[in-house]
């Protein structure tokens, strides 16, 4: 490797007193060469964001550099004044943010925002700035640059906003580019395009790229070298191929094992009587003039799992909400063991509701912050017909079953982590002993290792209780790992419906093929 662009030696950043550990990051050592992509992998709490903030001289209040050095092409970044930093930021180091639309000023046109980089660093006349901005937008493969430049951020899509942010970052050809989870907020196809763009630009301009992510699939696709962080420490660093194929550190091994892949293994079937649990015929929903769900048909066998895969706007959430009757269908019917919820009302509806229950996406919004988790589960059991005493007992038993202790009964949701709250959500859903469980993006907000545990739990429960599962997700890899049957949705309709093995190995519809091709990390993990 030729002379490194970035050298971090023994960097330790202290947290303010009272935090859960003394240092945000401890003794970090790494080096980045020109035209090289170094991926920093870690889950939440690993300290990767603090590292990137430190590299920009923008640590949050309360955090200080306790020891160590950062050298950018020889310049010591730990000893710069704020004025010097203003020159460095944007010109020698640039950052691509995690949430592109929020990172752009909502009341300024995006072209102006790109031009601002040139304004700040004092080069070029106004006409030259405008011309440069247009040229950059074009380089990002955005069509019709003049119209894009005149747009406001909310008029563009997430992917387009991200390319504007990349254009801003690259405008002065910095030596170091820090990409902090730049594709996490994008859907799979946009993500693939942005990753391709970053690699292309790196080849063209030769800057060093520090790519921070939690998604090992992404890492597999673009990294030259990988650094793994856990709880503020660098546990492993080395060439990408080496780390992915023969990880040395147990944490890295755990991370790689937890990544969902397309390798479908055969799974044992629960012992239930055969037959269709769910039958959907012509179910559709229209909001005003928009058809959120076009008429669709489905059959799900008892004790199996159907995955519904699609990007945002595909109609998968609408389908879930129709099945559980949170919204009324415009037409069609959904029969759960022969009973259509949409045709019931009043007391019979209340009784019938227990046959289908949902586990929600947001672990922070799905539990009432003011009630203890035990009460929430017990109430669900009571609504299904249990008396007070047995409801409490059911709640305690379920808490144990999902991997929490019965002592958790009296605690409030704020005492639990995201993964634990999802387990409570599962327990709440199971308290009614439903025939069907809908998991609406239930693992999307979780770290990869926690995600794997929750998926395992769902598999176990299906085996034990014979419950039918409908699993909604945007991640085809997760869907492949847990389902027997997959429905792929796009713009409100089901474009492909078949068993998982067929879908993964020989997808019929072009959209499915595109999704599989765009899924990061294929073939490497």
């Amino acid at each position: 490797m030729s002379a490194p662009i970035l050298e971090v030696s023994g960097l330790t950043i202290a947290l303010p007193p009272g935090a859960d550990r003394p240092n945000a990051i401890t003794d970090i050592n790494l080096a980045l060469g020109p035209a090289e992509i170094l991926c920093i992998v870690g889950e939440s709490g690993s300290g990767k964001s603090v590292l990137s903030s430190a590299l920009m001289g923008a640590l949050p209040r309360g955090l200080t550099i306790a020891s160590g050095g950062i050298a950018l092409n020889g310049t010591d970044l730990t000893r710069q004044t704020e004025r010097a930093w203003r020159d460095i930021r944007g010109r020698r180091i640039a950052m691509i943010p995690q949430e592109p639309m929020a990172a752009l000023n909502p009341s300024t046109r995006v072209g102006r925002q790109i031009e601002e980089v040139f304004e700040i660093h004092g080069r070029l006349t106004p006409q030259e700035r405008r011309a440069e901005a247009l040229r950059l937008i074009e380089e990002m493969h955005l069509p019709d640059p003049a119209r894009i430049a005149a747009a406001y951020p909310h008029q563009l899509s997430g992917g387009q906003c991200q390319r504007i942010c990349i254009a801003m970052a690259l405008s002065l050809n910095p030596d170091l580019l820090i990409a902090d989870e730049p594709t996490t907020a994008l859907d799979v196809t946009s993500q693939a395009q942005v990753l391709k763009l970053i690699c292309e630009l790196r080849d063209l301009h030769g800057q060093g790229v520090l790519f921070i992510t939690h998604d090992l699939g992404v890492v597999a696709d673009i990294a030259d070298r990988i650094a793994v962080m856990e709880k503020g420490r660098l546990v492993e660093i080395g060439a990408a191929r080496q780390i992915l194929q023969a990880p040395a550190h147990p944490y890295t091994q755990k991370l790689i094992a937890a990544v969902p892949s397309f390798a479908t293994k055969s799974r044992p079937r629960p012992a239930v009587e055969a037959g269709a649990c769910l039958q959907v015929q012509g179910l559709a929903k229209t909001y005003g003039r928009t058809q959120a769900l076009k008429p669709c048909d489905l059959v799900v066998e008892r004790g199996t799992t159907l995955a519904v895969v699609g990007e945002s706007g595909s109609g998968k959430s609408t389908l879930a909400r129709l099945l559980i009757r949170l919204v009324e269908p415009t037409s069609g019917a959904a029969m759960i063991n022969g009973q259509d919820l949409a045709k019931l009302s009043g007391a019979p509806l209340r009784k019938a509701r227990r046959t289908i229950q949902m586990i929600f996406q947001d672990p922070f919004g799905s539990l009432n912050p003011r009630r203890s988790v035990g009460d929430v589960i017990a109430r669900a059991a009571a609504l299904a017909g249990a008396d007070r005493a047995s409801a409490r007992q059911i709640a305690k038993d379920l808490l144990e079953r999902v991997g929490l202790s019965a002592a958790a009964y009296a605690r409030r949701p704020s005492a639990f982590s995201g993964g634990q709250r999802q387990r409570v959500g599962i327990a709440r859903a199971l308290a009614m002993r439903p025939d069907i469980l809908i998991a609406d993006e239930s693992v999307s907000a979780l770290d990869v290792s926690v995600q794997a545990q929750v998926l395992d739990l769902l598999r176990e429960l299906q085996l034990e209780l014979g419950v039918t599962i409908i699993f909604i997700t945007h991640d085809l890899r997760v869907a492949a790992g847990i389902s027997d049957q997959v429905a792929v949705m796009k713009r409100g309709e089901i474009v492909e419906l078949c068993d998982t093995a067929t879908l993964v190995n020989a997808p019929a519809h072009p959209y499915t093929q595109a999704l599989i091709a765009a899924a990061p990390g294929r073939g490497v993990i």
Partner: protein
Amino acid sequence: MLSFLSRRLGGMALTMFAVSLLVFLVLEVNIDDVAAKVLGQFSTADQRHAWLLQNGYFDPLPLRYARWLWGFVTGHWGVSTYYHADVRDLIAPRLLATGLLMISTLAVMIPIALTLGVLAGMRQGSKLDRGVSILAIVTTSVPEFASAVFLSAIFVFWLGWLPGVSTLAGGVTLNELALPVAVLTLSSAGYIARMTRASMVEVMGSPYVRTALLKGASLSRIIFGHALRNALGAPVTVIMLQIPWLLSGVIVVEVFFAYPGFGTLLYQASINSDIYLIEACAMIGVVAVVVSQLLSDVINTWLNPRLSLALTKAAPPAGASAG
């Protein structure tokens, strides 16, 4: 934009209609009370009966309301029982005086409140921030008549710099406006400063301000180029919505300083049970509030590109997808 305005105007008209019904019902549903108030407490039952008959008060309620509303819309607002003059002639000059007072107050209060709020929000947690918050809490806790008393005690009684009353007998002078404006400013500046501060704090913590920082922008560029435009939207709305509250304060302040405005007129009407004058004043007060709400909506829409573009129905670029 035009359809938005016409929709809002329609809503305003409906509100005014409901308000007029409310005012009419509250004040004129009991006709004996009306007669007693108009003719005075020494009138006899016969006199009242004759007057009620003569003025159409024995007609059914809906008819009376329709007549009253029509009279209102065409500018016939009745005669004041206390002043023995046409209500409309009484109100006009008073409205002018109160308008002057309100505008002077806004001209003083808005710059002070916005500046304090922006400074406090920029340096969150600093001594300035704490100071502004405490000052705001204290000033909004003191009722207008109490701050009028305190300010008068200092500037009229102790220092003797300003006159104790502001009757505008010799025309409008700065001296006479000073204390009323000061009292009104004190009572509303605090709240607006705090709202501005909150908005500023939120904007300073936003991702796009961080982006500007990471582009290498200086503090002044961040404040003037990015933060202010987005932070001032909320305070502007708050200011417009403070106007109803200011109108209440104006009544107390005018009475205290004997300022010949709309407030003192309403006050006189209320202690003399001057029904028709009260009705007219109430309706005008409501018009002022409703107009200020409309203005607030218009300004808000103009400031926020998201709203104004939605209203003018600019189609999003063809490339925008949900992803």
